[in-house]
């Protein structure tokens, strides 16, 4: 989409865009170049001359079962996290959209978890869902080992997904509520006249009309799940990737490999794969944002 009204100057736009473009070149494109370089050499931890090794780093990455494990974990994390956030957000948005007395207060409250940093939430949830304390202790007393994220990778993965979903549900909620409210009221009214009850209206009219918002959120949340800053924060502060790589998402593995394992090259190779993956998402999203799934 283009604006009809524009100003004619060739240097002003450059001047206006320059500060950010410069920052982006410096902190985005230049580092991206370095990642490229490292991915093809063996970068010594303390710096110094590095040997060109071709695709060896990639070979190593791809032949490492734990790498694929991290891909799988990331996928599960992003997919489940996305589904839960959107599902919770959707259900709550539909409920609040009914505008019953008091729903304004709920709307206000639901957005709050968005403010919380992933790591802080992680720490709190470590306490809240700790197997030997509170609620879960009681459950575990009745069914031993029913819940033990320190022991079972699957439990730990559930834990981090729950934290992710908790933090982001409020965010999707807001978008979905906005989406719902921009569905013309007369459409739901028309459906009501056509004999549809509230649930039927939600399924037949509201949700299909939310498709653009849903898709938008799907992409946003998937990206967030794969590379979002909270993803790393949550994993790092709650499970540190464990137990036994059970929650080792791709970003965590990259950071861990680089800084703990002092393997900058391997980490760079992984970064590049991840960047490629995200580029695909970006592409999809741009296609989508520019050409919304509109019915008009």
């Amino acid at each position, binding site marked *: 989409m283009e*604006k009809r*009204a*524009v*100003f004619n100057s060739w240097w*002003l*736009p450059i001047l*206006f*865009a320059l500060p*950010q473009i410069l*920052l*982006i*070149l410096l*902190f*985005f494109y*230049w*580092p*991206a170049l370095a*990642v490229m370089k*490292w991915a093809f050499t063996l970068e010594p931890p303390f710096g110094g001359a590095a040997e060109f090794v071709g695709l060896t780093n990639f070979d190593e990455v791809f032949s490492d079962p734990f790498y694929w494990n991290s891909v799988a974990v990331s996928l599960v994390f992003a997919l489940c996290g996305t589904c839960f956030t959107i599902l*919770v957000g959707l259900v709550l948005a539909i409920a*609040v959209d*009914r505008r019953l007395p008091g729903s304004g207060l*709920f709307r206000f409250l*639901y*957005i*709050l*978890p*968005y*403010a*919380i940093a992933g*790591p*802080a939430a992680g*720490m709190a949830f470590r*306490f*809240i869902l700790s197997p030997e*304390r*509170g609620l879960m*202790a*009681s459950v575990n*007393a009745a069914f031993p080992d029913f819940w033990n994220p320190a022991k079972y990778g699957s439990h730990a993965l559930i834990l981090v997904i729950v934290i992710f979903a908790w933090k982001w549900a409020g965010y999707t909620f*807001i978008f979905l509520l*906005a989406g719902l409210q*921009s569905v013309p009221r007369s459409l*739901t009214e028309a459906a009501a006249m056509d004999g549809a*009850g*509230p649930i039927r209206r939600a399924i037949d009219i509201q949700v299909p009309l939310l498709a653009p918002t849903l898709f938008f959120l799907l992409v946003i949340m998937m990206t967030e799940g794969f590379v*979002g*800053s909270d993803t*790393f*924060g949550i994993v*790092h502060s709650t499970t540190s990737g464990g137990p036994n790589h059970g929650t080792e998402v791709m*970003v965590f593995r*990259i950071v861990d490999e680089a800084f703990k394992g002092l393997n900058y090259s391997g*980490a760079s190779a992984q*970064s590049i794969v*991840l960047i490629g993956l*995200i*580029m695909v*998402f970006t592409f999809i*999203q741009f296609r989508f944002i520019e050409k919304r799934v509109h019915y008009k």
Partner: protein
Amino acid sequence: MIQRTPIADALTYVLMVFGFILLIGPFLVILAGASQTLQQINSVPFHFLPQDRFLENASAAWSRANLGSAMINSLIMACLVTVGKVALSACTAFAIVFFRTPLKHFFFWIVFITLMLPLEVRVVPTYAVAADLFQPFRLLISALTGIEVSVEWNLLNSYAGLTLPLIATATGTFLYRQFFMTLPDELAEAARMDGSGPVRFFVDMLVPLSRTNMLALTTIMFVYGWNQYLWPLLMITDPAYKTTMMSLSALLPSENGLPDWNVTLAGSLIIMAPPLIVVAVLQRWFVRGLVATEK
């Protein structure tokens, strides 16, 4: 409103209360835990009622994690990120939307590709850039002219280092662009007819008109800035620049010590408070700003 059915209304309330428990419940548990004594918090089953020890726990946490300076650092960082982002992205979006120049698409893409590539995936080399900001320029100069310059600018352990790389992303630009696109063409045309040039239009019209968006962006960026975790963790080694997120681990009960989660939770509550307040206060504009542009 469509004539209501009592059953649907009841179900709605059930869902909303369920959502409340799900989303706000954790806060309540934290609040309860943060106000209990060591014995209370470690008792099984857990008591969900808040007690009166919050201030003691909070002050213990405050001194344990040296939260005073961390809070100030986080505040500075969050504010710088917010201000920088709000200002720069408005400028870039203006350049992208309101001019017809061949560079427009170049700018657009160069900025928007970064939208989906957060710091986390390029953190290692970004660290190197932050350590030696002028390296690219030096290389450029020596490649072009053969002259070796030895200027260096190290951003590690500085507020500039904490914030600049975070400002170099596209979220805000994107938000502004979407907003600018929704402004009627006639607005700029009317301004042009009134004799206003582009800069004047930017200052007189766009800036005041995008107030809602600025507040939305302010919310997002404050939360984003305050909650930064990995970047400070890597680039700050000087405790004078420590942010609250870095203090989190210091808040955990020490490995060999008492499981005083009450202090931990009180501390985490303090750390959560500023972004929480910002979101609570600005949420109306936050929602409006997002919604107006997203739709």
